[in-house]
């Protein structure tokens, strides 16, 4: 039974870590690009939002599977 919780923890932890790294890079690049060309800020914001949606797609599915493991398989 404990192995299920460990698996869920690994899924959630890796998903959160990967999303954190991805969002840090994305946010950093947005700030850098906006400082270089402030007139492009609205376009860059839109592109950042679109990329954010793509970035957290897989970790979100991971969250769903981890919750399934915790509350259905182990519960």
């Amino acid at each position, binding site marked *: 039974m404990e192995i299920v919780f460990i698996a869920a923890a690994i899924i959630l932890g890796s998903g959160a870590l990967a999303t954190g790294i991805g969002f840090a890079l994305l946010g950093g690049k947005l*700030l850098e690009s*906006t400082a270089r060309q*402030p007139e492009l800020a609205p376009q860059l914001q839109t592109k950042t939002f679109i990329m954010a949606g793509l970035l957290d797609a897989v970790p979100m599915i991971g969250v769903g599977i981890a919750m399934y493991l915790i509350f259905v398989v182990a519960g």
Partner: protein
Amino acid sequence: MNSSRKPIVRLPMARWLAIMVGMLMIQSLLWLLCGWVAFYSAWLGGLIFVIPNAYFTHRVFKHQGARLAPYMVNELFKGEAIKFSLTAVMFAAVFLLIEPVHVLALLFTFAVMVVTGAVVPWLVKPQQQR
């Protein structure tokens, strides 16, 4: 900040929501072939995606313009953290409080909605007003 000013980017929220809810309805109706439980499980799976994502979109576009870019990045991080937590809490609530649940319908619909949600902003892009 610039809340009293006219927004620079106009979000097609109504069209996004219409596409998402349309996709959700189609999938839920397809799952209805497997029974009533599969229908509402699929509907819940879609809502678990749509509600946190709508909140995230609201937070990301709270601040606009080059001067407010640091605030926007701050809201991006906070919005993502809350979206992640809200998704986990909603999944936990569904698995704990709703009985019975068709798990395959719930997770499959959620996964399809996640992919749809990532693709929809490419198809219907936000428009700049200046």
